[in-house]
């Protein structure tokens, strides 16, 4: 009699415990899902906050004037809001930095993946990682106090704030990004391809450049795109070293202003909430966000493609 009561009681206790376990399982799952949703909310938050304040801007300035105007003087008493000089400055810096980071990064990656032995890799990889971890403000200081005087020594008409010196610093900063992503892509190429090429009598260099690199090309180009998107979004280096003159020029020795450095400059000045000057921040930010978003999606698509191949 007592035994069966005990058994029933035990079963009851066990049942409630199982129920509780199941309940905490469901609760945990839902809470974790909420966390994941926060990341989506962040993107939505960016888009909404940029759009909301850009609308205030575009009610006063037409989109056409904004995108194709050639004069950018938001802080003058008679302001002009043509974003072309900023886009041009951004483009100039991005191009020069890509000229530096892409070849250096790619060749570093080829060396690390195809030639270097384990010991060398163990030394170079952490160095690259440290380089990647250096804050951009330090690169900015370096550009202003080391690269610019150096350039002045070679070309005397260089201005104190110039696009070239900032671009070099941005280029150096993005080298680790290119090299580590390209190396991943190169290492994903199956060894059978290399062995095949070597068996046909090609040298190691021919194998690397004509077989391995083409095979990894989508991953490598994805890393290029990411480096470009990083250079476009780079802020502190260009604010410090490239100056703040919106300048429709492709002369790298002059001072230029990029989209990012305008945002910093304008947020530093007194632009009261609700003025066109304040809203212009968000319009430029929106343009910047859309450009980098496009580039990121492009690189994502490229990586996806190369994953499918192997």
């Amino acid at each position, binding site marked *: 009699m007592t035994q069966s009561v005990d058994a029933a009681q035990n079963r009851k206790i066990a049942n409630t415990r199982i129920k509780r376990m199941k309940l905490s399982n469901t609760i945990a799952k839902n809470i974790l899902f909420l966390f994941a949703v926060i990341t989506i909310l962040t993107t939505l938050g960016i888009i909404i906050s940029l759009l909301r304040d850009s609308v205030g801007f575009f009610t006063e300035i037409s989109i056409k004037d904004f995108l194709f105007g050639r004069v950018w003087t938001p802080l003058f008493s008679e302001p002009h809001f043509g974003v072309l000089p900023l886009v041009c400055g951004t483009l100039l810096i991005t191009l020069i930095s890509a000229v530096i980071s892409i070849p250096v990064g790619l060749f570093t990656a080829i060396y690390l993946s195809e030639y270097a032995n384990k010991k060398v890799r163990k030394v170079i990889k952490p160095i690259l*990682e440290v380089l990647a971890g250096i804050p951009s403000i330090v690169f900015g200081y370096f550009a202003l106090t080391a690269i610019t005087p150096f350039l002045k020594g070679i070309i005397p008409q260089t201005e104190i704030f110039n696009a070239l010196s900032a671009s070099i610093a941005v280029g150096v900063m993005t080298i680790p990004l290119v090299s580590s992503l390209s190396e991943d892509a190169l290492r994903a190429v199956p060894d059978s391809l290399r062995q095949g090429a070597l068996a046909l009598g090609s040298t190691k260099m021919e194998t690397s450049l004509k077989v391995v690199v083409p095979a990894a090309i989508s991953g490598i180009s994805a890393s290029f795109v990411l480096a470009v998107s990083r250079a476009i979004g780079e802020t502190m280096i260009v604010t410090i070293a490239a100056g703040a003159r919106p300048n429709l020029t492709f002369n790298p020795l002059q001072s230029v202003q990029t989209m990012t450095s305008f945002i910093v400059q304008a947020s530093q000045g007194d632009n009261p909430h609700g003025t066109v000057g304040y809203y212009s921040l968000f319009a430029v930010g929106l343009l910047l966000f859309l450009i980098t978003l496009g580039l990121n999606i492009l690189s994502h698509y490229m990586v996806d493609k190369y994953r499918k191949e192997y």
Partner: protein
Amino acid sequence: MGSINIILLTIAFAVPVGLGTAIYLEEYAKNNRMTKFIKINISNLSGTPSIVYGLLGLAVFVRTLGLGKSILSGALTMSLVVLPIVIVSSQEAIKAVPQYLRHGSYALGATKWQTIRKIVIPSALPGIFTGVILSVSRALGESAPLLMVGAATYVSKLPDNVFSVFTALPLQIYYWMGLPKEDFKDLAAAGIIVLLAILLTTNAITIVLRNKYQRSIE
């Protein structure tokens, strides 16, 4: 002090959310559209320039929520900046936990949540920790978003609560560089050395931890 305050709050916000997201994506999420969307979204977020986060912080935290130019706004903005780093590195760490540990736990009758809490997280801990340190060093060096949120450049007293005005080391360097006097250039250089010393230490810790961790898995 401003930097330390920001970092501590940033960790407090970013780590639970980032870890939670990583666990959800690796353990619970089904392979459907929503999951794919979240993943693409995260990779986009990690590629978004930090200054755009600064604009978000300015519009949402400073203006709309009325938190003002405070440590709290700065830290919230910064946690969004480092969130993708925490998520991705935690995901990698969770992925690296061998499947048989999970199966063993299920075989003993544990629920999914118990398995995650008692088996998966403890074994993925070193990897998660690496991600946290990485995000700390990123947050330490990041200046653009804080500049946008409106960190002050001259603060003489230590902040006393989360709503105080604040400054951070990189911002201080930026401000010093902008001053015309030659002495401030030296001050900026000194600030950079301090910043680099902290960052190199955190990076070194990360690398040592990772080497140790890799060995233990092999």
